[in-house]
Structure formats: C-alpha cells, structure tokens
C-alpha cells in the first residue's frame, strides 16, 4: 500500500504547491522538502534492511487488457529511489534558496513534485503501461521546468526540443512496450522478465528491441539524440541539477537496467547498447572540458556519464553490472553537488563563465569546500566513492569481449577528459587572485550550500566504509539487473592490479590535459569547432527537420485545402466515382444488361422524360438567370407529372407547389446577381463534362441494376393492409405520414421551423445592421 501512496501523495502535494507557494513564499521549500526526506528515511529505515523480499502492490485496472495498478520495489528500484529522494530533499531546499521569493515558486514546486512523484512511480511500476505513464509524466514536467523562464525564447525553444525528442522517443517506447507485452503475454514487468526465451525467439523481438532502445536513448540523451540536454540547461540550476543530471536522464538507463534480464540476450543488444553508450561517453567527454559555461561543461559531462552507464549495461560481462551500480551512485552525488555549486556561483556572482570566475575561495568558503570534494570524487581519487566507481568501470572495460581494446581506449579517454572537467568546475573558479564579478560574491544562506556540501561529503564515508554497507545493497541491485539472486560485496582496496594502474594512468593523463587545457581549447576553437560539420549539431539538424515539417504542412494545406468550393467538389466527386467504378469492377457487374420489354407504349412517359432532358439542356445553355429558372420550373412540373402517373398524387401536388415556390424564391434572390456567365477555360469545362457524364452513367447503372434485385417484398404490404383497419385512412401515403412514420414528419416540420427561423434571423440581422449603418451615417 505504501508504494502507490507515495506517488499519490506526491501528486496531491503537487496540486497544492501553487497555493502553498503563494501563501508561504520561500518557506514552502523546506516544508515541501519534508516529503522527499520522509520517503528517503522510510526507504532507509524499512526497505533497505529487507531488500531480499521485494515490496509488492497490485490492484485491478483494465483486466481485459492485462493492465493493472502493479507496483514492485526491488533492489534496482531501491537504488534509484534512494538517490532520487535524497537528491530531491536537498534540491527542494536549494530551489527555495536559489529562487528566493520568485512569484512562480509555487508553480515550480508543483512541477518539481509532479516530476518527483512520476520518477518514483517510474522506478517502482510493475506494469508496462503504468511505467510508460510515469515516463511521459517526467517528460512533460521536464518540459514545463525547462521552460520555467518562459518569456525567453531560448527557454521555450529548448523546452520544445526536449519535449519533442523525448516525446517522440516515448511514443516509440510505447509501441515497443506494447509489442513486448504482446510477445510476452503479460504486461507485468516482473513476470515478463522470466520469459526471456520466448522473447528472443519471437519474430517481432527485433522491432520491440529497437523501439525500446529508441525510447531509452532519447530519454537518456544518447548520441545522436544528446543535443536536447545541453539545451535544457537554460532552466534554473536546481532543475538542471535534479532533472537533467541526476534523475530524469537516468530514466532511460533505468529502463534498460530494468529490462536487462529480458533483452540482454538479444543478438543486437550488445552492439547497439554498448556501441551507442561508448560513442556517447567519448563524445560527451571530448566536448565537455573545453566549454566556457559551467553548466554546459557539466551537461556534456553528464552526457558522457550517461553513455558510460549505457555502455556498462550493454557490455554483457559480469563485472559491468556492479560497475554500473557504483557509477550511477557516485555520479548522482557528485554531479548533484557540482551542479548546485555551479548554481551558487551563478547566483552569487552573476555569471557562469569560467573565465570570469577567479579566486572565489575566500568569498565562498563553504562552497569551495563542497566543490573541491565533489570534484575529487568525480576525478576518482581514493578513498572517495568515485574512486571505487572508476575502478569498477575499468575492470568491466578490461573484461569486455566486444571490441575490447576500443572499449578500454574509450574509457581511458573519457575518464581523462572528465578529470579536466572536474578541475574546471570544482577548482578553477576558486583558485588564484580574485577577479571582480558582475555581482559582489558572498556566501548564500544554508538553503543554498547545505545540499552541495552534503553530497560532497557523503562520498567520503561511502567510500571509506564501502565494505560495510555495500553487501546487501549491491547484491540486491545487481541481482535485480541480472535477473538472478547473488551475493557480493564491494571493497575499497583490491590490492595492486591492472585496474588500479589504469586508474592512476588516467589520473595522470587528466592532470596532463588539465595543465594544457588552455592551449587545447584555443587549438580546438581554431580547428574543430570552426569547421564542425553542421550535421554534427544535433540541434541544428532537429531545427532543420522541424522547419521542413512546417514547410511540408504548409504546402499540403495550400494544395489540398483549396478555397474554391468547386475544386473541393471536384475532388470529392473524383474520389467517389473512382471508388464506385472500382467497386463495380471488383464485384463484376454483368454486362450487358438484360433488355427490358417496353410494355404498353408509354407515350406520356416518354414525353415527360424528353421534356425533362430538353429543359435541363436548356438550363445548362441558358444565358440568363430567368431562363434558367423557367427551365427549372419546367423540370419541376415534369417531375411532378412523373410522380402523378406513377400513382403518387400527393407527391405530385407537393412537388408542384414546392417547385413553384422554389423557383419564385430563386428568382427573388438571384435576380440581382450579375455576370451569369463567368468565363471558364475550355479544358475545365471538358473535364467537368466528363465528370458529370461519369457520375450520370454511374447512377444510371445502379438504378438499372437495382431494378433487377428485389430481396423481398417491401414492407409496404403491411401499410396496405393496416392503413384502413388500424389507421382509419384511405390515403395510405397520408396515413404513413401522420401515423406509421409520424416521427419522420415531426422531424420534418422541425426542420422547416428551423429553416424559417434561420431565414428570419438572417434577414433581420442584415436589415438591422443596415439600419444601424444608415442611422450612424445620418448621425
């Protein structure tokens, strides 16, 4: 019960947040931070000690579609939940300090809480569709959070970009999940994971895998979908720190980890996942250190680590999964801390450009400590937890079977570059002689520095005491990812081995790069960045694609949705007739027709028919409206005669009166219209004539053949029998109208009533307007 409750409470709080924000101002931050704190404490107190028995919850939802409200908390969920709620607690407080009394603070918290609950829901969902719902909720809340400074166009553009990339990926994911559910025959994740064999053999498994990977890669900013992430840095720093480095971007990673037991045996898993991960890792690391904006540096570093995590999941070696768990934890803590530091610098100094930030150690002492510690963890220097993560990573890379040397090289380069990034963010702004900044720098309140400090210090005990706490925790998490029960512990010190050597080599390379960083930057600016092919800027490609889509839409609308009514009509008729003749062709109407005997020389009928045809011809050729109207009158009279001789006397009379009234009204209205004969092109006229002939032929054909089919006696026999006995009327037509089918007649007079009302109101409207105009003109 606790599992859905957490999510629901979070959502409720999210609804309340705007009001609370308005009432309490800045104080809302620590108040709302109690929620993630409570979640974190609950987790530590009750869940972590009993990780070997997963928590379950299930309630019916849509049974016929196998959908249920199922939640499931195992080691993997616990891992994610732990750092989400821990970071959440401090981010909430930090956001209060960062934004102060911003008028939209309440709304920010609404979206933050929405995101937080969705993220928790995502990691504990045990139903594929439920999982997807939370997935999309994180995307949409990210959209609103990136667009927090919504009056700047850049923010709006980045928000849309992030939403579209993750949203499109999300839809692919949805298709993938549905396929997965259909293949596995269940939508319960925990049951599905046991059916890896059926999955691999299923013909649709390739499609499912690709779709799921598309979703995961877009969400986790894997190359080539990474570009939205640096763009998302326009958001206020608490948001970037929480969503775009520590938690949301890991949703894709989580998904891969969650489905790892099911998907990892697939033939394409390793090449796709490890490959994409390695490329992303290297790319991010290569981009990161040379940027000038603190947040951009961190963003590319995040991209790199996300690639690293993906690669670890894809490698398919035993050592990779513990490395994955270690890296994800280490990264969450140091990156959150560094991001918050970047935010403090921005907030207190007014700039994020590292060239303008110098010697801030004395102005911001606490921040500098936090930054330094976090950077050390990021560099992977013992005994911090970052060191353990890096060592595990190297171990896994050393074990990689798949393009082993390439993987090691990638890890080496990335880790070295990340060392530089860590230096640039964690040390550089605080060293040297102070430089004046746009704002006079001074330490902010505890709301600001508590978070970074906490997360900077945390890796120290985590690293030192790793062998004490890691046993059950790592066993549960790694076991959940690998889909088996296992026992393992992590130690700080494994003795001198290859991994340790590598680790130090990397550190050395990092130091070397750090020393030469300015030269490299200058070189890169001159060469690579200047000539960077446009296709490598994902954002540019994305914007280009978007523009093309708009152009396509415009062109389509211009061509298809013509203003002129007759073009529309032509299109409709062409399609209609096309379908009609196709159907006739398919159903093989027998040609030629059976000759029909002409009984009883129908002189009168022939005459009526000829009059109709002649009058129509005259109407088409008529040069003036009155002639056309008169011809119409003749057609009407002739039709009336047609009705009369075929026994429809009521009908004939009605037709006469109505036709006369129609013609009179027609003349009344139309006689003012000028230019009866607008010029038309010959081609157009011929085409229309052809169309008209085709439709006429189609109708003729149908009626002619319809005459030959009579499935049963018409129901009129009943009317003939009962109209006198039960309806007390000799005129069967009238009895049908007022008794058998009186509802039709009622509807019909309602139509008439409305038409008359319409005519009345329309003419009255015009008359009044005109009157007003003349009065206005007079006055």
């Amino acid at each position: 019960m606790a599992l859905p409750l957490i999510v629901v409470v979070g959502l409720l709080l999210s609804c309340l947040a705007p009001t609370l924000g308005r009432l309490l101002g800045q104080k809302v931050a620590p108040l709302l931070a109690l929620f993630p704190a409570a979640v974190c404490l609950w987790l530590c107190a009750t869940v972590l000690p009993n990780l070997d028995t997963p928590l379950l919850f299930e309630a019916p939802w849509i049974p016929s579609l196998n959908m249920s409200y199922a939640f499931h908390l195992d080691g993997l969920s616990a891992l994610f939940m732990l750092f989400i709620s821990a970071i959440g607690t401090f981010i909430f407080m930090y956001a209060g300090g960062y934004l102060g009394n911003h008028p939209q603070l309440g709304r920010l918290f609404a979206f933050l809480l929405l995101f937080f609950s969705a993220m928790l829901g995502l990691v504990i969902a045990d139903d594929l569709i439920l999982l997807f719902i939370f997935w999309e909720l994180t995307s949409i809340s990210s959209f609103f959070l990136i667009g927090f400074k919504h009056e700047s166009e850049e923010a709006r553009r980045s928000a849309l970009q992030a939403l579209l990339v993750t949203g499109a990926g999300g839809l692919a994911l949805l298709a993938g999940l549905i396929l997965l559910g259909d293949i596995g025959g269940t939508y319960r994740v925990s049951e599905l994971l046991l059916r890896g064999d059926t999955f691999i053999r299923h013909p649709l498994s390739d499609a499912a895998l690709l779709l799921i990977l598309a979703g995961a890669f877009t969400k986790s900013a894997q190359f080539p979908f990474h570009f939205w992430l640096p763009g998302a840095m326009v958001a206020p720093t608490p948001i970037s720190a929480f969503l775009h480095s520590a938690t949301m971007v890991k949703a894709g990673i989580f998904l891969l980890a969650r489905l790892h037991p099911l998907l990892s045996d697939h033939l394409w898993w390793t090449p796709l996942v490890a490959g994409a991960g390695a490329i992303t890792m290297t790319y991010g690391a290569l981009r990161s250190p040379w940027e000038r904006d603190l947040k951009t540096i961190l963003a590319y570093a995040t991209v790199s680590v996300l690639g690293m995590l993906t690669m670890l999941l894809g490698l398919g070696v035993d050592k990779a999964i513990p490395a994955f768990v270690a890296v994800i934890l280490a990264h969450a803590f140091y990156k959150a801390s560094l991001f918050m530091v970047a935010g403090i610098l921005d907030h207190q100094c007014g700039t994020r450009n590292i060239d303008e930030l110098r010697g801030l150690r004395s102005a911001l002492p606490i921040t500098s400590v936090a930054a330094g510690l976090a950077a050390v963890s990021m560099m992977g220097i013992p005994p911090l937890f970052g060191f353990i993560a890096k060592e595990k990573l190297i171990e896994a890379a050393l074990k990689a079977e798949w393009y082993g040397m390439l993987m090691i090289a990638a890890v080496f380069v990335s880790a070295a570059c990340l060392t530089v990034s860590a230096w640039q963010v964690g040390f550089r702004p605080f060293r040297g002689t102070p430089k004046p900044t746009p704002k006079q720098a001074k330490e902010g309140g505890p709301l600001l520095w508590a978070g970074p400090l906490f997360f900077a210090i945390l890796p120290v005990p985590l690293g030192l005491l790793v062998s004490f706490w890691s046993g059950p925790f790592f066993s549960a998490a790694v076991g959940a990812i690998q889909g088996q029960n296992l026992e393992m512990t992590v130690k700080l010190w494994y003795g001198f081995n290859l991994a340790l050597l590598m680790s130090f080599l990397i550190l050395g390379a990092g130091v070397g790069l750090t020393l030469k960083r300015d030269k490299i930057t200058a070189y890169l600016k001159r060469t690579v960045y200047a000539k960077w092919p446009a296709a490598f800027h994902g954002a540019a490609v994305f914007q280009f694609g978007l523009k093309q889509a708009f152009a396509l839409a415009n062109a389509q609308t211009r061509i298809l949705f013509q203003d002129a009514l007759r073009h529309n009509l032509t299109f409709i008729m062409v399609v209609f007739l096309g379908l009609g003749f196709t159907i006739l062709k398919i159903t093989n109407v027998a040609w030629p027709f059976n000759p029909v005997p002409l009984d009883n020389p129908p002189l009168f009928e022939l005459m009526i028919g000829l009059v109709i045809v002649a009058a129509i011809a005259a109407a088409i050729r008529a040069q003036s409206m009155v002639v056309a109207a008169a011809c119409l009158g003749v057609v009407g009279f002739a039709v009336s005669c047609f009705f009369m001789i075929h026994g429809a006397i009521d009908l004939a009379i009605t037709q006469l009166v109505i036709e006369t009234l129609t013609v009179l009204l027609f003349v009344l209205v139309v006689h003012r219209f000028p230019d009866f004969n607008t010029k038309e092109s010959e081609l157009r006229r011929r085409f229309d004539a052809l169309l008209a002939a085709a439709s006429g032929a189609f109708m003729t054909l149908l009626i002619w053949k319809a005459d030959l089919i009579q499935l049963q006696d018409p129901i009129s026999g009943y009317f003939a029998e009962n109209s006198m006995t039960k309806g007390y009327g000799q005129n069967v037509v009238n009895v049908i109208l007022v008794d058998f089918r009186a509802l039709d007649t009622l509807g019909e007079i309602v139509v008439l009533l409305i038409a008359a009302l319409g005519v009345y109101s329309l003419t009255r409207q015009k008359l009044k307007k005109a009157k007003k105009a003349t009065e206005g003109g007079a006055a």
Partner: protein
Amino acid sequence: MNLLVLPVMIPLITALLLLFCQKNRRLAQIVSTIGAFSLPAVGLLILSRVHEEGIQVIHMGSWQAPFGITLVADYLSALMLSVCGLVGAAVAVFALKEDMNLSREGVFFPLLHALLMGVNGSFLAGDMFNLYVWFEVMLISSFVLLSLGKTNAQLLASIKYVALNLVSSAIFLTGLGLLYGKTGTLNMADLAVQLQNTESTVLLTSTALFFLVAFSIKAACFPFFFWLPPAYPAAPAPIAAIFSGLLTKVGVYALFRTFTLIFNQDTAIFQPILYWMAILTMVTGVLGAVAQMDIKKILSYHIISQIGYMIIGLALATKLALAGAIFYLVHHIVVKTNLFLLAGAIEKSGGTNDLKKLGGYYKGYPLLAVMFLVPALSLAGIPPLSGFFSKLFLIRASLENGDMFMAFMALAVGVFTLISMTKIWMEAFWKKGVGENERRPAKIKRLDLTVTMPIAVLAVVTVVIGFSAGHVFHFAELAAEQLIAPQMYIDAVMGGNAR
C-alpha cells in the same frame, strides 16, 4: 419505454418553450439551462437501463419493428447520449452571457436545443430514413447557428459548409433509395437480417459506398473534409464548441452503426478503403493543423486528424479496436469541446485567436492556463489523461493485428499533435504579452464564472476519464461487443418477429 423518447423530445420541448418566451431573456436562460442539464441525466439513466436490462427499444406509435419507426439504445448510443448531453449542457452554460451577441432575435438557444435534438435523434435512430431526418434537423440547425453572428467570413464559410453538406444529404438520400429498392425495408435491424441472408451482395456494395461517402462527408474524413476548416473557426465560440464536439461525431457514429450492423459482409472491399481513409485523414488533418497560426484553426484541423483515429477502429474492426475508437469518441467529444470553449474564452479576454497577437496568459491568467493544459495535453495524448488511453487502445489494437504501419502512423501523428498543442501553449501562454498585456500581464481581462465553470467541469471530466480509464473502457468494450455481434441488436429490435 418512453424513456428513449426523452433525449429527442426534451430538446424539442425546450426549443419550443424558448420560442414562446423569446421576449423574456431571464426566463429563457433558465428554461434553456434546465433543458440542457436534463439531457446528460437522461443519457445516464438510459445508460444504466441498458446496463441492467440490455438494449432498449421503443416502437414509435406502437407499430412493430420493421414497419414503424424504432428508436434503439445500445451501449454505444447511450454512451454518446450521455457525453453529448454533458457537452451540450456545458455549452449552454457557456453561452448564457453571450446569446444576446449571437442573435438579437433570441433564436440562439432554440437552435442549440434543436441541434441537440437532431444529434440525439441520430444516436437513437433505428431506421435509416429516420436517421436521415435527424441528420437534416441537425444540419439545418447547424447551418443557421453557423451564420448567427455578424462576420462576413462566417457567411462565406457557411456557403461551403451548406453546399457540401447538401451534397452529402443528396448522396445519403440516393443511397437510401437504392437500398430500399433492393431490400424493401428501412429498419436497420431488418436490413441487417435481409443482407445477412442474401448472396447477391454485388450491388449492395456499391450502395454501401453511398452511405460511406455521405457519412464520411459528415464525419469530415479524407477526402471529404473540405467544409470543416473554414466553417468552425468562423463560428462564434459556443457554436464552434458544440459543432466540434458533436457534428462530426454523429457522422462517425453513423459510420460505426451502418458498417458494423448493416454492411458488414463486404469487409474485403471496405476494410482497405477505411484503412487508407483513416491514415490519410489523420495525416492530412494534423499537417493542416501544424501549418496554422490561429487557435481555432489549429483545433479545427485537429478534429479531422482525430476523426482518422476513430476510423482506425472501424478499419481494423476487432473488438479492441472498436472499443478503443469508442473510447476515443467519448474522450474527443469532451476534450475538443472544451478546447473550443477555451479558444472562446481566450478570444473573449484577449480579443483575438491569432497566436501572433496573443501572449502572457501563463503569467497573467494562470487559472486559464491550468484549464487549458488539461484538455490540450489530453488531446496530445499525454498520460494519464484521457487522450493517452484512447491512443493506447488503438495502437494496441493495431499492433495486435500485426499492423506496424498503422501503429507507426498513429504515433507519428501523435508527435505532430503534440507540436501544435505546444505551439498554442508557447505562443498564447508562455510568450510575453503583446501590446498592453506586455506591461501589465495581471490586467488580462478576467472572465465570468459562466465562462470558466463549464471549462473547469469539462477539464475535471477529462481528468476523471483518464483516471478511471478502466471503467470507461469497460463500457466501451461492452459497446464494442454489441457492435461486433449485431445479432443482439437485431433480436432486441425485431423481438423475434423477423419476417
């Protein structure tokens, strides 16, 4: 038994009463509101009756089934009645403050109720010609409603609308004539029986084409949708709202009814037609929407696109697909009406629907922003709102059919829907205010409770549909079951006295 008459008769009586008390505005408003609110109540009553006792039938004038006119309510009809009643009530409230502007002759409310009468009648009709009559009631009311107001654009749009709908009516009538000529009956259930037993479907297929085209014009499917984009944006807000919610849906309903009940033999021919119609409708509609810069125009093109989604249900014709389409129908009526009401609300407070001239609503009018978000995100298919589930069901249905292409198109169209919804959001809400609103965003004109209340209620309904998707889907499934197995319907109507 007479319960089934009420959805038709209550609007008619209300309309007549309103015409009687034209002079007394206050009284007219009260009568109209009471009339409008009784409709959803009756709808739900019928739904519960259908749930308890099965398909409801009334033989008008006590004339037995194939001979007289029958009104029938199955799950689909009852669902549609309830939702349309709800939407109608919301619009009736929304228009309370505006009816004076719409027509000084006091015909707005009577026409609104006449429209509802036609719509409800179409849902209940168990007789093809009766369906035609209800269509005409609905159409003529919509014609008149569309031209209420003052603008010239409205008149011009009306011409196209009326002309194309008259063509559709003529096609419908022609089809009816051919159908009667062949079967000698008009009752839908009886038609179904006749056509089930016949082997000579050769020409019935071509007759079915007439109905397909006629209803597709009403439903605004590809390529019969030309009347829609000019007509809806030109209409005043409440009218556009009620149109968007109801008119095209009646066409969709009619397609569902006829092609599951009567013309269900020629699947080999009509399934591919419907399939491509669905896809092209979705795609062309959404591309049209992307190209627009006016809220109402965007929404209008979206209607087309979403009709395509509903047709998917019919094209796939599995139980899940039909249920998904019905769910979509319900969701779409609520959401689309709400969005048009919102467009009206924005127009009222900002004076325009042009996105280039709007802005600053997020800052200046957060309440409206929240109320916009719910239906807009729902339309774009963001979970856990109703739109997500409707898309989910349809995509699941197409994937279960092994139809990757359809699923892909549905998803891709979803992305474009998202683009155009966020466009409205970003331009009208996030962007800085334009002109006066830029300096004083908090001074954006506030709206009356009669305007915001219906929007809020419909937004809540959207949320409720989303959160109780299971229950709503259950009903959609029951409705789909009845559509899949028309024998139930036939038995209920014919009552065992099949000829």
